[in-house]
């Protein structure tokens, strides 16, 4: 009894086989091929060319090398060596009698017996006393002027607050004095917490300070030795030894090849496209690329200055981007919900400001340049519902 499963299986297999035979039904674009100009040369030309590069053997017949002379005389016997006689055993000698007895050993140092235990060796220096730390009853983020999705520690005292963290540029004494780096001050992002912390939520037993970790002992600095006068490494590629008069065939061969290649390049039609390069479409954006773009925009979306009514508005805006990742034209409002006209206007202005501010923070948005067609048009929905109770 053939059940419907047999038919389904048969149809499925037939369809799959047919699908495979028909080449998956896709019109796959061929992979990009970089054209390499080449040509063919005749066997005679190649032989001539190789002959010109191969040094010709000398016209004279080779002469045999002189045979080595073999000395058949046996080597002289080794000279007789006198057998060493053993040294006579010395007679025992009585120890000399000292006329003056040696001085008695110094009396041991007598100390009064006490119950005090011996002094232990000095311990290593103790670390500095730790401040009395109270146990935090409840971890509560510290108060900060900036609230964002990801927290960041307060900037170091010697760092300037900036959007992007960078280390201070310190001149290196050992560096090449001719290479002068632009002195930059250390920057750090502003202190950020993930939620608003009110005075009432601030636990009184919170840890205010932490013990600074002990610094590791510094390694002994290696002795500074004057390096020998060495010639600085040449960054330029090693120069080819100029052809000596002894190698004229090589020169001829190189010239031939160059001339041949030049002729070929002249004869071959140009493979360089004259039209503008096609805009890369690229594969779809990955999740990480989408997240990177989203994070960069949301870091500029400041909802703190919006009215309560505007914080109820979910708004969708659209804009086009140029290939250098800048907004082409202006931001357009697509849709909005959750508020009156004034609240929507504020929500739109805040979203628009976030887009332009984020664009101006660096060299455009962080988007893969080889996927331009995937992000040429962008539609962003700003939903502040999760931010109202931060």
């Amino acid at each position, binding site marked *: 009894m053939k059940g*419907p499963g047999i038919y*389904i299986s048969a*149809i499925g297999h037939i*369809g799959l086989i047919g699908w495979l035979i028909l080449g998956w*039904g896709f019109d796959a674009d061929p992979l990009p091929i970089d054209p390499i100009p080449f040509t063919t040369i005749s066997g005679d030309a190649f032989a001539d060319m190789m002959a010109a590069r191969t040094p010709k053997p000398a016209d004279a017949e080779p002469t045999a090398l002189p045979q080595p002379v073999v000395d058949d005389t046996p080597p002289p016997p080794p000279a007789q060596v006198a057998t060493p006689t053993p040294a006579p055993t010395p007679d025992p000698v009585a120890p000399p009698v000292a006329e003056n007895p040696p001085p008695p050993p110094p009396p041991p140092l007598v100390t009064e017996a006490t119950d005090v235990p011996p002094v232990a060796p000095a311990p290593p220096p103790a670390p500095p006393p730790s401040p009395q730390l109270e146990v935090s009853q409840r971890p509560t983020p510290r108060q900060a*002027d*900036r*609230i*964002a*999705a990801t927290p960041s520690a307060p900037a170091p005292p010697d760092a300037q607050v900036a959007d992007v963290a960078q280390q201070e540029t310190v001149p290196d004494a050992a560096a090449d004095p001719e290479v002068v780096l632009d002195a930059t001050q250390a920057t750090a992002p502003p202190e*950020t917490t993930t939620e*608003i*912390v*009110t*005075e*009432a*939520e601030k636990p009184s037993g919170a840890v205010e300070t932490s013990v600074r970790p002990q610094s590791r002992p510094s390694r002994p600095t290696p002795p500074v030795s004057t390096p020998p006068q060495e010639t600085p490494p040449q960054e330029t590629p090693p120069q080819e030894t100029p052809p000596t008069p002894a190698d004229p065939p090589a020169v001829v061969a190189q010239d031939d090849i160059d001339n041949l290649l030049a002729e070929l390049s002249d004869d071959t039609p140009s493979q360089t496209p004259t039209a503008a390069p096609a805009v890369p479409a690229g594969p*779809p*954006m990955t999740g990480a690329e*989408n997240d990177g*773009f*989203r994070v960069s*925009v*949301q*870091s500029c*979306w*400041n*909802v*703190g*200055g*919006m*009215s*309560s*009514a*505007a914080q109820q508005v979910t708004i969708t805006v*659209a804009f086009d981007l140029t290939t250098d990742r800048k907004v082409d034209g202006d931001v357009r409002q697509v849709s909005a919900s959750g508020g009156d006209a004034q*609240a929507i*206007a*504020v929500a739109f*202005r805040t979203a628009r*400001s*976030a887009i*332009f*501010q984020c664009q*101006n923070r660096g060299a455009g948005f962080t988007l893969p340049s080889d996927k331009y067609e*995937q*992000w*040429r*048009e*962008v*539609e*962003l*929905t*700003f*939903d*502040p*519902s*999760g*931010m109202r109770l*931060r």
Partner: protein
Amino acid sequence: MMKRFLTLLVALMLAGPVLAQGGPLRLTITDGVIEPIPFALPSFQAESLEAQQAAADISRLVVQDLAGTGLFREVPATAFISQVSSFAQPIAYADWRAINAQALITGAVTVTGSQLVVKFRLYDVFSGAELGGGLQFAGTTQGWRRMGHKVADAVYSRITGEGGYFDSRIVLVSEAGPKDNRQKRLAIMDYDGANLQFLTDSSAIVLAPRFSPNGDRVLYTSFESGFPRINVLDVANVGQQQLPTAQGEMAFSPRFSRDGRQVIYSLSNGGNTDIYRTDLGTGQHVRLTSAPSIETAPSLSPNGDQIVFESDRSGTQQLYIMSANGGEARRISFGEGRYGTPVWSPRGDLVAFTKQNAGRFHIGVMRTDGSEERLLTSSFLDEGPTWAPNGRVIMFSRETQGAGGTSSLYSVDISGRNLKAVPVQSGASDPSWGPLQQ
């Protein structure tokens, strides 16, 4: 049939990726940031020699107002790339973008005799366009602070989309002397503590002043007769009248209705305290509660339909809401501790309150259904919250511990941020925030 189904399935599988690749890149942003908006305010141009001082003072005041909200941050003048030398000068937006100023405020001041004119423009730097049109205010040189506050209010309103609160006043109880012999007087001042003026002398204890909706009158509780009575004070001429109260009754904790024609208050008679409403025009009064417990501190909703008040009818002091005409009340506070002095926000969405729990006092807010309770402050004694006209800021009084403790005013954003002291020349308590001045 099965074949069609499989064909359709294969077609959908093939079309899926193609369809997914079409159209714009669509993303949803849900996590933003909350941080002060940087703004630049080059000192306003003095268009006459006499205007130089006023221009500098008004510029400084606008910066103080905006930065004092915690929503804005001034970009220091030392960071400016381009200078504004004329009110009509075109704006070099790129220079202001480079220093990350999101808003630019330019202005000019003219003084002619005793008349002062201030005008300003606000620019959205990243949009490269003016935000709203230019605006100018005219007044007297003595009123330069009010004009500065009005400029700040306009800027605040255009950027945030909600009204400001800088051109408003506070009525309060000014305090002087030791705790056991404290002198209390009614006083009025600007929202930032400037222009403090006394409305009463210190001959009688005064408590709980409350502004009328348009700011022309003040209700307060006076112990002039030895018993608490409710007085109505005219702010313009300091004239007073007393709410009629029978012998042996104690009236306190008054508030105006939203139209300013009626007063709701607590009346204690025979050991029982209930909430009443009295018409100021006719003197007719209505009893709104009749429970044997203590009902007090009534506050009307913005539309006047409901009253939030405190009551100990459940055994502890809690918050309740009932109709403005009385009737059954529903409890909205259920947390630990005791709740009191509820005040309905001007927006109508929140209720501010004082909470006492575990030996600490808090100022907090909750929604009108009791949800989303959030404590904003914590101290030895915080009490008496009052709302800014825009419902975004709360002012309250804080008293320090000990015999030498003093009372002072503080303000805090409803998010709990920007907690700061209000500079008052003397000790102060019981603030009531008035409306924006006309």
